[in-house]
């Protein structure tokens, strides 16, 4: 492993952030094997209290944040969610609820709408209950999702269906797109799973085959041709890419994440990186963290870029790609994202992604007690 990056030369102050991902809790009733949250979850007793979140939202709005994503874990597990939505709406933030639909009832969602909630992003795993329940690990979970979708429509909230794609549901994407439209989605996100955190340990079971990726690509193209279909945002799989994604639109450039315990992160997987210290909203103003926190400065701008990114004409678009994937595959968080075919690790990355599984598929279970980590995956 290389040493951590040198302190960058003085840079102009960053632009104001546009988005805040508030991970209200890590608790979740589902057991998705593709969960990209970290292996070490924050326990309930360490979650920020209501007033601390309120203060975060007020500071975020003053700092320039426009979009607030209330996420987790399952954010509906927070009993104070209506107060949090109200505080965010009062601060002027556009509020998005990122949910599995597995918790709560019509009254709970109506309370959020009354508090000023604008938009719900609901995940779907399959187009029928047997597989849907099996993938989410919750009996009755699929039916609950469908009921939740009906409540969203009934309340007139803006509505996105999110479909995380992996080997077990890739062939169902055409049917899932139909279901999303039938449920009244305004827009659909079709996103290949991001193999960070827990998901990385299940990658050999989850990574789609090449024919499956072609099926998904074709399904999205066909759906987009329909005159009455909602728009689709498509996130292609890194394992079949030649160029990296513009992860977070650049490190510390537009987004910040606040973890359930108050740590502020440049991306939701950043805690997997070594040698980064994350400042907490409990001890520092959000504006100071955004401007000067060493974790936000570490890969901000392009002074830190390695070869071959440094001289690459595409660096302004992709910013060198994903730091977490670079570290997971190469052991160096400042390396070129191996999704790029100009990375010396590109071939090894593809080989690792498509290698046979060496351990059984591990569904995620939230536990307040530490548990043995899954076997480490070698890149």
């Amino acid at each position, binding site marked *: 492993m290389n040493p951590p990056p040198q302190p960058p030369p003085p840079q102009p102050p960053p632009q104001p952030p546009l988005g805040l991902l508030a991970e209200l809790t890590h608790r979740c009733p589902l057991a998705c094997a593709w969960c990209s949250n970290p292996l070490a979850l924050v326990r309930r007793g360490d979650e920020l209290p209501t007033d601390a979140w309120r203060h975060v939202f007020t500071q975020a709005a003053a700092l320039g944040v426009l*979009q607030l994503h209330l996420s987790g874990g399952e954010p509906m597990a927070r009993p104070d969610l209506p107060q949090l939505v109200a505080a965010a709406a009062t601060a002027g933030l556009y509020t998005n609820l990122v949910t599995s639909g597995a918790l709560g009832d019509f009254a709970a969602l109506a309370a959020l709408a009354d508090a000023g909630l*604008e*938009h719900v*992003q609901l995940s779907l795993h399959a187009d029928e209950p047997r597989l849907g329940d099996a993938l989410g690990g919750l009996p009755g979970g699929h039916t609950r999702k469908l009921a939740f979708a009906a409540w969203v429509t009934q309340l007139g909230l*803006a509505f996105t269906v999110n479909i995380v794609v992996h080997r077990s549901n890739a062939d169902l994407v055409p049917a899932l797109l139909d279901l999303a439209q039938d449920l009244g989605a305004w827009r659909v996100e079709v996103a290949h799973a991001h193999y960070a955190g827990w998901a990385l340990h299940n990658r050999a079971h989850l990574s789609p085959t090449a024919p499956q990726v072609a099926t998904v690509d074709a399904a999205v193209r066909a759906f987009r041709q329909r005159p009455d279909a*909602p*728009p689709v945002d498509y996130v292609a799989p890194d394992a079949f890419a030649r160029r990296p994604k513009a992860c977070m639109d650049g490190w510390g450039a537009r987004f910040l994440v606040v973890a359930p315990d108050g740590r502020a992160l440049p991306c939701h997987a950043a805690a997997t990186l070594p040698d980064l210290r994350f400042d907490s909203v409990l001890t520092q103003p959000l504006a100071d963290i955004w401007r000067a926190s060493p974790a936000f400065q570490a890969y901000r701008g392009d002074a830190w870029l390695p070869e071959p990114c440094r001289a690459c004409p595409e660096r302004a678009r992709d910013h060198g790609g994903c730091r977490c994937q670079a570290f997971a595959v190469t052991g160096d968080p400042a390396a070129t994202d191996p999704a790029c075919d100009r990375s010396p690790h590109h071939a090894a990355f593809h080989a690792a992604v498509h290698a046979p599984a060496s351990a059984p598929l591990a569904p995620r279970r939230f536990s307040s007690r530490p548990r043995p980590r899954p076997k480490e995956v070698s890149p």
Partner: protein
Amino acid sequence: MISDDARPRLRPHVHLRWDALRAAWVLLSPERATFPDPVALEILRALDGRLTVGELADALAARYQAPRARVAADVTALVSRLARDGLVLTR
């Protein structure tokens, strides 16, 4: 492409707001924040569901003494894009 007699309006939960920090108007919608240019801003402000696309072009062309055909092309292009993105309703 949107028809001339459609009466477009911003969908509920799509908001045109003044962003004081950036001193700019911003269009807020699910997972998006876009900063319209001056022409787009004038069109967005007029999307109230009462005027048709054709009437909107007439009004903006008269107000800015601009060629009707060019204004109509701008209006049709923007409204079509917003409708395709699910941000504008036309019924």
